[in-house]
């Protein structure tokens, strides 16, 4: 690591006591006289607290949503809830914007002068929106749903190409980081940090300290999987990781400043379970806790002295750091022994009163943060669970057949129970964690077609023992992902549904089918249009609907088959009559197969070379000189390591693709009303595995006599 940073565990927030609302946002005022005022939002209230900890301001917004983010500039208050963004001036409504999808993060950016702040919203439907009053100035499309947003005062624009633009950094749920240079009328995308290692979503971004002394502030990102990176922007506009580390729990917030001393700035983060941890460059991060009264342990007076020490004796800082750590350990040990005594006292008091263990367990429900996300590249789902207390076991139950996959970073031991069909449980499994673990990722493959539910029961390792259950719905078209644009060049099939249904009905049907949709139609609209991509096959789906009519267009017939089935059932349930016209095309089958073909060809060629490799290497070992081999075989030998690597990464891939084409063929036969000759399947499989077969041959087979 090029940058040396020292970790320092600072304080612990205790769990939120019952009866009070959780604080959802905490900021400093942005106005000149407000910089030392703290503003917090809890529920739908906003409070102001001054330096002495006295509440000097309280405002009830009367909103129905919980405020997720608040910003204060002089008399202006901006608040962002789940779908609504408000602007108040002196407590009066100034503007309101109802967002078409969930607001994940919000900021205010001085786009039109230092006192003219405009709200910027990062929304789940993959847009960053700039607001002016109640209007959207423009929407900037994002590559994935943005989940964090940070306005950076000092732009990362080394060439000063856009002096007027304001920089906003956003992190996405797929783990990438994007720079957006915003101007009042347009936005430009700057650098992008890709995520090749598939790390977690970027949950917090901070840029305010120049650790590397390059003249540009470093960018610090914190992820949902607990990893932290410090990035440096190079001359060429490339991002370089200069420091990275990993914590055991997700990072909720990041900031920076002079924290433990006045010598060096450090960045500080807040984790899911309430830990506050700082990272400081050499010279900082020394907790010398001989707090003089009133100094609050900042050790400011020591600052000057220490500096001279550090210059004179290079080992001195290390000594001091060690002492600081030791002191910290002592302090923690002391705290723990005090806590143990308190707990012992509580326990005996509890036992004396004949306490209610159930009540005890229920009174401290630990928080569990969970997320069930589609992993688009692998077409599988990852359920990540994070608990405030160590996990003993997570028990998984589903009424769908889930294929549990291995997650390398997991240390938990998977144990599958046999499916229990009489109780409708097709998947039952437990994950047992051994060491103190607060996080668990459960990865699984699931087939499209039927709606299913998934429950995870989290059993804690420490007492009192309560169990928290989290549930997720797996939608019939769960492997579909929202995209912005439809590729119009593809041959498609169409499913048209008409009838006397309202736009709300059809929206409810579609949200029951597909992930990633807002629960209600955007206000004032009678219909909507969404485009999806099948992450497994790359096929697309267009849904366009309004009251009385719904049109579904896809290049894959089986997708439409699933939609048809689902809507018919839903309509019958709500006693609505619908008419269906269905129009499959043979061309689309051809197209779908052609889409998968290159992958299949590559995979089976890879398998072939891999199988050959061993033999070739033996020849090489025996003969030494292998110049008599053909060019092809020699290159195989040269690329041996690479081939092995590739093969190792995706051993199941070929079988998977073969199964896919078989399914496609069966679906096509079913939906176009052909009685399926199952006896042709073995021949089809052979054809698919045979490395010499061509796409034409396959097509001939698929469309040939049945």
């Amino acid at each position: 690591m090029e940058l040396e940073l020292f970790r320092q565990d600072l304080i612990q927030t205790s769990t939120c006591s019952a009866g009070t609302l959780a604080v959802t946002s905490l900021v400093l005022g942005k106005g000149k006289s407000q910089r030392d005022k703290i503003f917090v939002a809890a529920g739908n209230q906003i409070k102001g607290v001054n330096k002495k900890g006295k509440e000097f301001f309280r405002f009830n917004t009367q909103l129905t949503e919980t405020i997720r983010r608040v910003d204060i500039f002089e008399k202006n208050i901006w608040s962002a809830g789940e779908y609504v963004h408000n602007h108040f001036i002196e407590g009066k409504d100034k503007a309101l914007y109802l967002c078409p999808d969930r607001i994940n993060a919000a900021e205010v950016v001085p786009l039109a002068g230092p006192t003219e702040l405009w709200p910027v919203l990062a929304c789940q439907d993959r847009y960053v929106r700039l607001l002016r009053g109640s209007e959207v100035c423009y929407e900037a499309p994002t590559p994935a749903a943005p989940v964090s947003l940070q306005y950076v005062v000092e732009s990362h624009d080394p060439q000063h190409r856009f002096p007027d633009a304001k920089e906003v950094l956003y992190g996405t749920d797929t783990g990438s980081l994007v720079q957006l240079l915003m101007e009042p009328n347009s936005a430009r995308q700057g650098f992008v940090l890709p995520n090749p290692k598939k790390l977690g979503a970027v949950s917090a971004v901070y840029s305010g300290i120049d650790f590397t002394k390059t003249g540009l502030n470093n960018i610090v990102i914190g992820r949902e999987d607990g990893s932290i990176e410090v990035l440096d922007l190079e001359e060429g506009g490339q991002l370089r990781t200069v420091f990275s580390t990993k914590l055991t729990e997700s990072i909720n917030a990041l900031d920076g400043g002079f924290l433990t001393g006045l010598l060096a700035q450090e960045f500080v983060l807040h984790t899911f379970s309430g830990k506050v941890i700082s990272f400081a460059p050499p010279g900082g991060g020394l907790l010398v806790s001989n707090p003089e009264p009133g100094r609050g342990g900042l050790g400011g007076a020591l600052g000057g002295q220490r500096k001279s020490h550090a210059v004179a004796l290079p080992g001195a800082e290390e000594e001091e750091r060690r002492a600081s750590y030791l002191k910290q350990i002592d302090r923690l040990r002391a705290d723990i022994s005090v806590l143990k005594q308190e707990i012992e006292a509580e326990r005996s008091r509890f036992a004396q009163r004949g306490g209610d263990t159930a009540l005890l367990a229920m009174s401290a429900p630990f928080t569990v943060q969970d997320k069930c996300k589609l992993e688009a590249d692998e077409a599988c789902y990852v359920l990540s669970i994070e608990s405030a207390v160590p996990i003993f076991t997570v028990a998984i139950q589903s009424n769908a057949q889930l294929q549990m996959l291995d997650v390398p970073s997991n240390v938990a031991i998977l144990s599958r129970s046999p499916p229990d069909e009489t109780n409708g449980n097709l998947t039952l499994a437990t994950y047992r964690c051994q060491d103190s673990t607060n996080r668990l990722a459960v990865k699984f493959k699931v087939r499209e077609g039927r709606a299913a539910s998934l429950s995870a029961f989290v059993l804690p390792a420490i007492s009192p023992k309560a169990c928290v259950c989290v549930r997720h719905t797996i939608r019939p078209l769960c492997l579909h992902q929202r995209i912005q644009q439809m590729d119009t060049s593809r041959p498609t099939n169409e499913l048209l549904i008409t009838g006397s249904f309202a736009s709300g009905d059809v929206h409810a049907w579609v949200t029951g089918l597909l992930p990633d949709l807002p629960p209600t139609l955007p206000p004032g609209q009678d219909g909507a249009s969404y485009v999806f991509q099948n992450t497994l096959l790359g096929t697309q789906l267009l849904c366009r609907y309004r009251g009385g009519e719904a049109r579904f267009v896809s290049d894959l017939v089986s997708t439409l088959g699933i939609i048809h089935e689902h809507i018919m059932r839903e309509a019958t349930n709500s006693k609505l009559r619908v008419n269906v016209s269905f129009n499959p095309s043979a061309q689309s089958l051809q197209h779908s197969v052609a889409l998968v073909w290159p992958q299949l060809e590559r995979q089976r060629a890879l398998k072939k070379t891999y199988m050959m490799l061993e033999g070739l290497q033996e020849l090489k070992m025996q003969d030494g000189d292998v110049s008599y081999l053909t060019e092809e075989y020699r290159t195989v030998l040269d690329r041996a390591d690479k081939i092995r690597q590739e093969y190792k990464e995706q051993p199941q891939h070929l079988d998977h693709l073969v199964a896919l084409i078989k399914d496609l063929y069966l679906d096509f036969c079913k939906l176009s009303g052909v009685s399926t000759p199952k006896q042709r399947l073995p021949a089809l499989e052979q054809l698919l595995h045979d490395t010499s077969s061509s796409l034409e041959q396959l097509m001939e087979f698929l469309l040939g006599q049945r």
Partner: protein
Amino acid sequence: MPCRVVLVTGLRAAVLTGKGYSSDGSEKFWTVTGDNVSAMAFCDVDQDGRNELLVGSDDFDVRIFVGEDVIAEVPEADQFVALAAVVGPRFGYALVNGTIGLYDRLERVWRVKSKHSVCAIASYDLDGDGLPELISGWSNGRMEVRRADTGEVVYRDHLSCPVAAILRADYRNDGMEQVVVCGVEGEVRGYLPLDLEVAPGVAAEVDFSEQQAAVAELAQRKQELMYELASYSNMRQQARDTPTDRGSLIPSDTRVDSYIAINKEAASCDLVLRTSNDSSVIRGVVVFGEQIFDEESLFVYPKNPDTSLAVPLKPLKDVSVVLMIKVLVGGRTATMFHVFELEIELPKFALYAAVDKGAFPEPASSVTFSVSERIPRLCAWVESRFNLKATTAGRNDTLEAYFLCLRDKAPLGIKAVPVAGQVQVTLRTDSLDTAGELVGDLAAYLGLTDLSSTADFPAAMKAFGEVLNAVDEHNITRLRMNADMADASNAAKQLIIKAEDARILADMKAMRKYYRQLADLNRDLIVEHDKRATNHVALLESLREVNQMIQRAARLRVGASKAKVVTACRAAIKNNNMAALFRIIREGDGPV
């Protein structure tokens, strides 16, 4: 002084037998153990200054041999991958299911399980503290060094491929031993013990990260304590505020009772759980237990939660296991559940249902032996090992009990009658294995060190006779085929000489002729070889059965009687005295 090297092999081919050879190749030691031998090690487990032989076999047991006597058996949860002596009476073990652990004498000190499988274990003092660690190599390429006393990881490394073996040797000839870890794809890494004086800088840095880790760990611990403390204070507050969501709460005196019941229809024994009141229902149960599930746990999630729940258990073999049960209990509409933690011991013969006398025909085979014990003691044994509530049927002076094994529907009868101051016990079952299991367990329960018995298993002996015949036949075939093979290979040699002579004389026609003949002969040889190979496999299979029979016969006895059966059988087989062999198996004794 003559040097005696004894080589000990556990042959997979001559399965079940352990053999010892001395340096001149003569056999010094022969015994049988429970099943295929998969791991062996020497370790001085009883600290008497002489090494014992530890043998891990596929029936999940480690047997500790002193000479031919088994002095102890240690049951584990799966097949063994390896055993390794660590230091003194300590030895490490590795199982197929990914568990590694360490025993001190016969007590397990620690164990850990991983989702990966372990490939090799060894021991060496890598951290330089004077005590050897247990080193393990894994299928994902991980190499771990764990402290022998706590199991704590002191060092970790990763190879790019699964580990094939871990060795220690002075590989560089510099007078210092290294630990060498080899991967299956040819990667080899050597490790030197950490010498604190050589690299102070490194040590200092390690020291530093350790402190950071210590702080983080303490912080975590503190947080957990604060959580517990907060739950107490929250509860006090809630008690004042009267909770609003009483729906998810269950009455404070709720208990969960558990017992094991036989379910004859499903051929299983059910773990039945029941809450003590109507308002709390069981939402689900997670049961952890070794050897009774396909994997380590069973999760039961009823569609309609009720106040009671039956978890069907079908142990694949007769083992006594402790079940760790987590019961999720809540109100009928709850989303949060209280976790009740229970432990229950599943009796060793839980899958045997008690039946009335005469309900099933009595098995024709039996094993009979006498013990100087009182009948009530035997009744107590039956009650503790079988899933019986009531006192065993029968009068005070005799014990008579009948069971049906739900696994294979085989009947079992236990009868004990006082005869001349002793109690004569008869176990009626057609299975030698079941009989052996019962005898072993009873002997352990009564603390018997020696027990001889009479075994009458006509059906099994008849089958055994056939096996012995098969061995003879295969042996004869083998000898005949060997002779044929020798002839054929001589013919081949001659043909090669003739062909080469013809080539030197440039008589191409003759050469071609000879080579053609050689090719034909070669083809014949290959065909012959296939036959021989098939015969060989069949022979080995039969031999395995013979060894298994000896083992079964031995298990009907305990202690010295047991060892005598093994040696006597071995001698009888060597002398090809089948009549004696049969008698030994029946009587437990015979001419040696």
